[in-house]
C-alpha cells in the first residue's frame, strides 16, 4: 500500500502522491516528484515546473527532447494544447512496509507554454491501472493498493 495526501495549496485540496522518478535517458538517478492523481488523464505527464525546478532540465535540454523521444503528441487540456514527448521512465513508490514498488513505463514531458508553467505533474491511468485507488477527503486518505 502506498500513501499520498491532499495538498492544501489547491482549492479544493487535490490528492497527491510522491514518487521517485527516474529518466534513464538522462541518468540512472531519481528525483522525488509530487504527482496529482488525475483519474481523467490517460497518461502520466511531467509539466515544466517539475522538469525545470526539480529535475533541473535546461531550456536547451527541453528543446532537444524530440531527438530522444519515442513519440510526440499534441494533448489537449484546459489550458489549451501542448506538445508532449514520450520518454522511458521508472517510477519508484514507497510502500507502507518500507519496500519499494517499481513500475517501468513512459512519461509524457510537456514542452513549456504560457499556460502550463505552474501546472502540477499528473499521474494518469497508465500507472493508476496498477492499483486500487482510495480517495477520501473526509478522512484524508489517499491510498494506492
Amino acid at each position, binding site marked *: 500500500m502506498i500513501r499520498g*495526501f491532499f*495538498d*492544501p*495549496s*489547491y*482549492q479544493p*485540496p*487535490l490528492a497527491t502522491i*510522491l*514518487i*521517485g522518478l*527516474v529518466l534513464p535517458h*538522462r*541518468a*540512472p*538517478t*531519481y*528525483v*522525488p*516528484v*509530487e504527482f*496529482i492523481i*488525475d483519474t*481523467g*488523464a490517460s497518461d502520466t505527464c511531467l509539466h515544466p*515546473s*517539475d522538469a*525545470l*525546478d*526539480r*529535475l*533541473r532540465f535546461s531550456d536547451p535540454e527541453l528543446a532537444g527532447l524530440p531527438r530522444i523521444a519515442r513519440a510526440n503528441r499534441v494533448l489537449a*487540456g*484546459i489550458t489549451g494544447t501542448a506538445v508532449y514527448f514520450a520518454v522511458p521512465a521508472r517510477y*519508484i*513508490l*514507497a*510502500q507502507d512496509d*518500507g*519496500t*519499494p514498488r*517499481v513500475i517501468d513505463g513512459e512519461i509524457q514531458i510537456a514542452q513549456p507554454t504560457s499556460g502550463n508553467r*505552474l*501546472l*502540477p505533474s*499528473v499521474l494518469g491511468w497508465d500507472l493508476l491501472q496498477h492499483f486500487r485507488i482510495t480517495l477520501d477527503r473526509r478522512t484524508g486518505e489517499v491510498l494506492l493498493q
Partner: protein
Amino acid sequence: MGRESTMEMPPLEEAVARIREAERASAFVRENYERLRHEYPNKRIALHDFEVVATGNDSWELVDNVQAAGFDLADVWTFYIPAEPMRLLL
C-alpha cells in the same frame, strides 16, 4: 517539492528512505501552509531541516540564493508557495 539536484541511484531501499524524507518536508509545508503563504506569497522556497533558508521569484533566483546562503542544492527541498490555493480544471 523536490531536491534541487538529481541524486545517485541508491539501492531501492535507500530510495524509499529518501522518499520518506521528501514526504516529511512536504508534510511540513502542508501543515504550515497558512503561515508560509502569508510570509512567502508566490515565492519558491528552499527548506533545510524544516527551516526556510532561501527564497526566489523563480527557480534560477532560488538556486542563486540557496548557494549564497551557503547550502548545497542537494541538501534542500524546494516548494512553490501560491498566495492563494490554486484552482485546477484537469
